């Protein structure tokens, strides 16, 4: 489904390479976790996959179902089925949440040549998802994320995911700023959504989230590269010993 091949990425504003030759292959139905210390390039990876400005791809390729993902516009990636849950979801005063959700869904459907969803069907769909994620009507009526707590914002991200039904989801430090209850709620949303045709890339600092969203593969990222891949026990190992064992691996690979 997703194939990253020897990807090298620099920041646009300073000549500094952040991702230094990263390769990763994700098949349908797989859950991959990327862990790593601060500054290892995890968030840069998610930003580049989602298509954010400010990065230069020096070399390498990213294929999504055979499409050149790096060539696609941000909104085209979304319509292809790529979704990133933001670490810090944006507040947009003046744009109503419902209007935003409906426009997003119908824009994607339009891009894919599908018929737009009418207001009644949309409402039914979105209310069902909101109920499952315990998001109040009042929250749905507000402008996008305005006045929402950290937990509410993350739940809103999961709601968007369930509504837009992407096939590849990046969870960018979704656990940051969440208490245990919120984390369980968010994880439940993700687990209910997972299927044999959907894949996840979970980016996190801590093993904690992976107790709830259980990965098939865990990758340790240090200094812009994946230095170690294992199963979920690798995450437990990191929890015990920290990243110090892996920092040396990062240096050796230079």
């Amino acid at each position, binding site marked *: 489904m997703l194939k990253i091949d020897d990807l090298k990425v620099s920041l646009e504003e300073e000549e500094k390479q952040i991702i230094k030759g990263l390769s990763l292959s994700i098949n349908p139905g797989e859950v991959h976790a990327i862990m790593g210390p601060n500054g290892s390039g995890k968030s840069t990876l998610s930003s580049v996959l*989602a*298509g*954010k*400005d400010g990065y230069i791809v020096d070399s390498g390729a990213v294929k999504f179902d055979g499409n050149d993902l790096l060539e696609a*516009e*941000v*909104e085209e*990636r*979304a*319509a292809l089925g790529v*979704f*990133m849950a*933001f670490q810090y*979801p*944006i507040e*947009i*005063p*003046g*744009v109503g949440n419902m*209007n*935003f959700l409906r*426009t*997003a*869904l119908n*824009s*994607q459907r*339009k*891009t894919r040549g599908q018929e737009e969803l009418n207001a009644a069907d949309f409402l039914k769909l979105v209310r069902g998802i909101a109920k499952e994620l315990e998001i109040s009507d009042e929250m749905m009526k507000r*402008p*996008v994320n305005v006045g929402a707590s950290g937990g509410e914002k993350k739940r809103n991200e999961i709601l*968007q995911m369930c509504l*837009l039904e992407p096939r590849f989801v990046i969870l960018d430090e979704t656990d940051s700023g969440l208490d245990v209850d919120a984390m369980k709620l968010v994880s439940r949303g993700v687990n209910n959504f997972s299927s044999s045709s959907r894949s996840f890339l979970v980016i996190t600092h801590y093993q904690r989230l992976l107790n709830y969203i259980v990965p098939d593969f865990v990758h340790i990222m240090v200094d812009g590269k994946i230095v170690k891949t294992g199963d979920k026990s690798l995450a437990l190992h990191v929890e015990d010993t920290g990243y110090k064992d892996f920092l040396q691996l990062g240096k050796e690979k230079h």
Partner: protein
Amino acid sequence: MNHVNISNWYNSLINEFKSKSLSIEKVSRRSEYWRKSNLDIISDFVDDTSQIDLNSINGTCLYEPNLTVHGDILELADEKSYEGLSILDVIADEDSFAKGYFGRLEKKSQRLVPRPLARENTLSPKVGYVFNFSDNLKKPLVIHNKTSPSASSCFQRNLIVLKENVEATIIETGNNLSVFNNVTEIYLGKNAKLNYLDLTGEDNLFPKISHKFCDMAEYSSFNHFGLRLNTKATRTEIELHLNGRGISTSIANVCLLNKENHISDENVLINHNAHECKSRQVFKSVLDNDCTSIVRGKIYVEPVAQKTDGYQSSRSLLLNENSKFLCKPELEIYADDVICSHGSTSGSLDQESLFYLLSRGVHKNKAKEMLISAFISEALDEIEDGSIKSALSNYIDIWISSFFNE
């Protein structure tokens, strides 16, 4: 004025006013209130209609008009519901109630700001209406101005009086085929309320200069909403006198300009002359293609006006490098127990918000439209009437979408 009969009271008024008349050419370019304005647009406007397809101009008319000011003719659609008089009849009438009102606010308005175009209007009105409301208006009164292409300029003079406890909503729309100079004097009685919407669209190919002067008695309320959609050149001068306690007022303006070098010039002066009054000013300008928006908003607080609550916000979105937002908020306060604040910002579309919308699959133009629409929503929220607000908001949204799809 030779062809018009005039009363003795109006004759003595013009004799008094004439001696203090001031021409636009003599307005000092250093004057704070004219410094940024492009006076050439107003004084030397080339009166060339040969390039314009007059049949294509329809006016920004959201509603069926009750009153059409066609050239210099007033056409009242439903005469029974409103008592409307022609200004020319009023200044000819020795016993008109208007003699206590006409020109008084224009004279007062010259105290702090030189307003030569308002003075010129007082001396030679060509058309206009007088409304003296003693009962609530159940429906909005819609006035459609259609100035004549044959006249080089049109001086429209209006007088609106609301008696105690009377509420009214007036919507002014129109299309100007000559330079349009409008002065409207407004008197609000105790607890009266006037909502006034001045909607000016892109078919205004000629400069439009609007003056609104308003005298307010205690607990009255005046809410003014201005819309400037690709208007070539507009200058608005609003001056309010808050003369009794408990008055509230809101001045909001949305300005969307994307045709080369178009200019909008908004000037507001709010005089707080009594205690416990509240005033709000919200300006939103979205500018592309080297357009300019000027906003001068002043809150003046007299020593007696304790517990004044004054708020002013002026913000712009600049979509190209040479567009300009020239903003001068002013506070002049002589009372010591007041809350007065102002804020002004200029910037481009927020890239983080744009990315967020795109990442959810919203198309780029649609995402920009949503952000522009969100940006101006604070000003639209000042409109109290929900149905007018939503009609207007839909109208503007459609307009914004054509803005990007051209």
